[in-house]
């Protein structure tokens, strides 16, 4: 493998990986605060992609499309949290897993009834002519995705370390009851964690649409996002980002090194191995227990 090829692959890997990183981030944030793993997060991404399609067809300029998707995504999260998650947040884990899964199926089937299964697509904001730099081809959409991922990750990290609400979220994730006794409104924290998570998910849908198209199966991304979250240790924000990027890199390199027919197996085999031998991930701090 030449250096140029290796670098080219690294770029490809990082660009898909940054989408996985966003999905992983969207999975980890509500899990950290409320202990609910949203198995329907993939469908939030799909929803974001379809919103992008609708808004683009209305001939709105890209910045407005982007802002509307983030806001609508966040509102969607607030609605889901209030109507579906809060009534069962204390239910056994089985109920939560199946319920979030079911929410995803409802979104996916509704989209498939409404829009059919045929693929649609939108253009990236900067066209698709590759940029040549240092003898490497860089897809402008990929560069844009990476930029957004870096901005979002920085914003999330700053949010959790600097703002009052972010600190309240961390307090709730450490000890819900103690946080409540300290005057933190736990319900507000849950609501915001869902809003942030679904806003990021919907944004991921907008970003990924030019690369992989828009169809009801976009939500399959969640499997890679989950793997990213597992690698990152489920409760670590930087871990989720690094985890997502590594999944992209692993997938891209394994495609070249061991052939395309088995490349899809690699992430899942890795998932099984990690879950068995290191369920706390590579960045996590011990197993997360919901008591």
């Amino acid at each position, binding site marked *: 493998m030449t250096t140029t090829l290796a670098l080219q692959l690294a770029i490809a890997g990082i660009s898909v990986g940054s989408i996985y990183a966003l999905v992983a981030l969207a999975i980890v944030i509500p899990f950290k605060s409320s202990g609910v*793993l949203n*198995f329907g997060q993939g469908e939030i991404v799909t929803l974001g992609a379809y919103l992008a399609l609708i808004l683009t067809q209305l001939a709105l300029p890209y910045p407005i499309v982007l802002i509307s998707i983030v806001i609508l995504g966040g509102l969607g999260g607030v609605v889901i949290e209030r109507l*579906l998650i809060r*009534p*069962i947040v204390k*239910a056994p*884990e*089985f*109920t939560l*897993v*199946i*319920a979030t*899964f*079911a*929410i995803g*199926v*409802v979104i*996916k*089937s*509704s989209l*498939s*009834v409404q829009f059919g299964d045929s693929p649609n697509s939108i253009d990236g904001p900067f066209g698709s002519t590759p940029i040549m730099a240092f003898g490497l081809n860089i897809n402008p959409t990929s560069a844009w995705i990476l930029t957004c991922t870096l901005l979002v990750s920085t914003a999330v990290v700053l949010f959790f370390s600097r703002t009052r609400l972010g600190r309240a979220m961390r307090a709730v994730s450490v000890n819900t009851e103690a946080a409540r006794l300290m005057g933190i409104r736990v319900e507000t924290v849950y609501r915001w964690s869902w809003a942030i998570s679904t806003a990021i998910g919907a944004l991921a849908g907008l970003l990924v649409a030019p690369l992989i198209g828009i169809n009801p199966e976009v939500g399959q991304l969640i*499997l890679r996002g*989950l793997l990213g979250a*597992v690698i990152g240790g489920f409760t670590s924000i930087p871990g989720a980002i690094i985890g997502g990027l590594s999944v992209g890199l692993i997938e891209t390199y394994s495609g070249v090194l061991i052939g395309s*027919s*088995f490349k*899809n*197996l690699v992430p*899942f*085999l890795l*998932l*099984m191995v990690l*879950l*068995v031998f290191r*369920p706390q991930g590579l960045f996590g701090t011990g197993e997360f227990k*919901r008591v």
Partner: protein
Amino acid sequence: MFETRLNSVLFLSVVALALTASALGSYPVYLMSLAGINIIAAIGLNLLTGNSGQISLCHSSFMAIGAYSSSLLTARYGLPFWLAIPLGSFLATLVGALLGAPASRLRGIYLALATLGFLQIVQIVIEEFADVTGGVRGLNVPKATFAGMYVSEYVRFLLVLASTGFAIWSATNLLSSRVGRELNAVRLSPHAAQALGVPVDRIRLTAFALSAAYAGLAGGLMAIVVGFIDPGEFGVSAALRQITFIVVGGMGTVAGSVIGAAVLSAMPELLRPVKEYNDIIYTLILLGFLTFMPRGLVTLWDSFRIQIARATSTKEART
């Protein structure tokens, strides 16, 4: 005890079905065969999830293993179906034990993730080994023959019916045995069970293997009843459908599996006019039961039974 009585009621109605089915046309017989297959799969999943308390998002994969291995044994090695189906079920059991070994150490969402990963692995293997399995285009299952003659639709239905009866009988006995009590103990309090000398991890593994055995049997039967299998039949939505069976029927009871699978197997027919909304309605039913009736339809039987008891003897009802 009442549980057992409900099971015998169900068992008798299954036998009654067999007798009436001969008078029905080919299509209802086909549908009832599918219902029987769903019941067998649900019984397996319920042992794992309802009794031992382990989430599984890959029950449909064990059905796939049973279906594909029995079909391939028939197609490639000319094994008769009555040998291939039990072998397929046995293979599913082995794989179930293999998955159960690591999975029995995982809890909650980690187990959900591992089983979801396993489902994906099975799907990818079926799709990528297309020259053996037919890949995404599916596999035509050789017609079941016995003594050189094709087995008719009605006989295949009787076979499913006998298998369903066997599944109900074996699971009921299993649950009233030592293993059954250990399964429930492991769900209710793993620590207490451990302290009382129940080998928790081994019981969890046993639950995986047992549930895979039922799923493998259901898969093998499905292959000969439908005559065609493809990986789409055994994906995440199939796994979720099986979970819906046990949630709607009632977790942890054989009667729950039977009622849930039987009621919901009729659904696609009732919903034929609104076919495209099938998945949504199915999932909303699942969500509704999870939220408002988490113990399932069998609770209706319980309240019915209590009312009967009240009516017959007020004295007994008070105690």
